[in-house]
């Protein structure tokens, strides 16, 4: 489709507001969602777009997140482009259906605002909601700030609905830190986004009564594993598709993305690995330390599922120590990001850098620049000693530690 791009708008807007704008531009056939802090503004803003006739969407105001995901799967199987938004306990309540969406290869688009899981109840940011769902078969893309969250959602449909992928996708942003913070960012022209996203292609839609299909059959030991293997292939293919769509996005809108982002990493001895909004502060600390001669850098994850093991290992191949910051805990084990980075380095790097694991920020506990400096200093000590003993698996900024 030929399109002359209109002018983008530079707007001060919250991360949640930006997601609602992307949803309006994508104009899905169906949205089914239930309000939960801190994702609520997405649903509220979108409801206004529905009320004002700015979208064609049928908005299903479900009575729970479990029903939200159920309705999304139904609508997607019916042949529609389908979106939802949620957080924390809301996604936990969808849990069973997350797996169903992935196994039925329904490319549902979710805007997830990361929030701590209850126990004790807490409304602030950490990644325990999405990290717990990392085996559910959903693509997971993380964002550092409002602009990235918006851009990622604009790219989401092209990735998830690609014939070689056909998997649901969650675009993650940090609760409150991104969702409720106003940043000045670029909202692209409506028609340009529409042209970029493209039309939705239904796949064996259940509304096609001429070609009746059975969706969701009982799948026993003679076929189940082949279908699961198919899901894995979709995930593998997604690595390529995410890169292709990101390249096309850069051509259209100028902002470049990849499976992950590196910052001043080329000659770095110490590389920090992190996800989400923490990357902004880490970059600032890196700039400061670089003026003092410290060779430090950052690798920021964008695609956590699929996880680009080989590509990341290549980027980390010169590091002498890799310090991983996890914003979720796997009790009795290392954090999920640390585990993936270790897997990546062990399998794909010739050298054996030291690997240091830190847990931070659970339930919204702040990550200050001083703390990041402290972690870099700890990493330097480990590197000088040639071992991480006594410093492995620390929790940052915790009383009594």
């Amino acid at each position, binding site marked *: 489709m030929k399109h002359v791009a209109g002018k983008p708008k530079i707007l001060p807007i919250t991360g949640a507001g930006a997601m609602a704008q992307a949803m309006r531009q994508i104009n899905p056939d169906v949205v089914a969602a239930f309000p939960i802090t801190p994702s609520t503004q997405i649903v509220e803003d979108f409801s206004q777009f529905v009320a004002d006739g700015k979208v064609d969407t049928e908005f299903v105001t479900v009575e729970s997140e479990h029903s939200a995901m159920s309705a999304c799967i*139904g609508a997607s199987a*019916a042949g529609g482009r389908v979106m939802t938004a949620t957080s924390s306990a809301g996604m936990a309540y969808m849990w069973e259906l997350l797996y169903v969406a992935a196994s039925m290869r329904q490319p549902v688009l979710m805007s997830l605002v990361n929030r701590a899981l209850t126990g004790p109840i807490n409304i602030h940011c950490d990644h325990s909601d999405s990290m717990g769902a990392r085996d559910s078969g959903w693509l997971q893309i993380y964002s550092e700030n409002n602009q990235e969250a918006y851009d990622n959602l604009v790219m989401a449909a092209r990735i998830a609905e690609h014939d070689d992928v056909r998997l649901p996708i969650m675009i993650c942003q940090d609760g409150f830190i991104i969702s409720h913070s106003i940043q000045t960012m670029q909202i692209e022209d409506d028609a340009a986004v529409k042209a970029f996203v493209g039309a939705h292609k239904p796949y064996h839609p259940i509304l096609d009564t001429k070609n009746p299909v059975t969706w969701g059959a009982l799948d026993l030991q003679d076929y189940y594993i082949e279908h699961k293997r198919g899901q894995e292939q979709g995930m593998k293919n997604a690595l390529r598709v995410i890169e292709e769509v990101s390249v096309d996005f850069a051509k259209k809108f100028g902002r470049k993305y990849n499976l992950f982002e590196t910052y001043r990493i080329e000659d770095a001895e110490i590389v920090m690995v992190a996800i989400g909004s923490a990357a902004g502060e880490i970059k600032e600390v890196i700039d400061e330390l670089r003026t003092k001669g410290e060779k430090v850098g950052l690798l920021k994850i964008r695609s956590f599922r699929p996880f680009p093991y080989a590509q990341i290992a290549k980027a980390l191949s010169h590091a002498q120590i890799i310090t991983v910051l996890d914003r979720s805990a796997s009790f009795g084990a290392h954090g999920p990001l640390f585990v993936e980075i270790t897997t990546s380095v062990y399998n794909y790097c010739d050298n054996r850098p030291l690997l240091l694991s830190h847990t931070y920020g659970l339930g919204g506990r702040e990550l200050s620049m001083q703390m990041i400096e402290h972690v870099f200093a700890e990493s330097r000590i480990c590197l000088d000693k040639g071992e991480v003993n006594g410093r492995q698996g620390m929790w940052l900024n915790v009383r009594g530690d």
Partner: protein
Amino acid sequence: MNKPLTPPTLAPLGPETQLMCERPGTFSGGHRMCAGCPTGIFTKMLTRVSDEYEIVAGNATGCLEVASSIFPYSSWQIPWIHTAFENASAMMSGVEACYKSLVRQGKMTKKLKFVVMGGDGGTYDIGLQSLSGAMERGHDLTYICYDNGAYMNTGVQRSSATPMGAATTTTPVGSESYGRKGNRKDLTKIMLAHNVGYVAQASIHDIPDLFRKMKKAIDFNGPSFINLLSPCIPGWKIGADMAVESARLGVDCNFWPLFEVEEGKFTINYRPAKVFPVSDWVFSQGRFKHLKKHPEVVQAFQAQMDKQWAWLEMEEARTA
């Protein structure tokens, strides 16, 4: 236990029922339902109710679902979807919402109707919330609950629809137990409390009545609900040839009155010429046989049935 209990009380076939016999069916043979299971009776009617629209169907997890769709086989000759146990109404809300959206956008013109099916476990219990949500939101869909009074698919565990005194694998009979205690949930009343435009109780033994109700429910523009008595051979511990007879006696003893409520107006569709005592129905089934030693439970059961019928008569008079 296997001899016929009551004389047949079927109405003569009406013109609609004739049509039912002529239209093509929905549901092919070869499924894995138990011998004598009556569930296929209503599933076969789905495409026969009208020529004016086509049906898209969905199921909660349960006997009907697992027995009809073992990959790579399916008994469904119409579009059919299943995702989980407790969410069938929400799932179909999404299907219906997508249809509405596509029609509004001019991407679809044909007339479709949506039907959800679930057992009492998936409807009275684990699926009640999603059913309530779908009914309250007003989707154009029909929910058919085939009530066999327990979680039969997992091996006869009690549900909130299990009748008083019934032995199930989670309410077994023992020195301290006569089976399920207390009264069953009245889901039909709960649906009425949602102000659903068409609510009916039907039984698989009365095919003309069931067919008429299914047509009315599916024709209805908006949410509609049918609670369908559907005996379970192993769960009720009855002979494989006894499903229809057991359902008939359930109606004739007023355990399962046949009635419908259209926009709030009650109509009792069938008044037994002779109301059998509930003990006749109870003692025709193995799941109640221990109640011989507990006449007080049978008495309480009977009292509850009398109360239920009196309420129904009152409502019919009130809304006449």
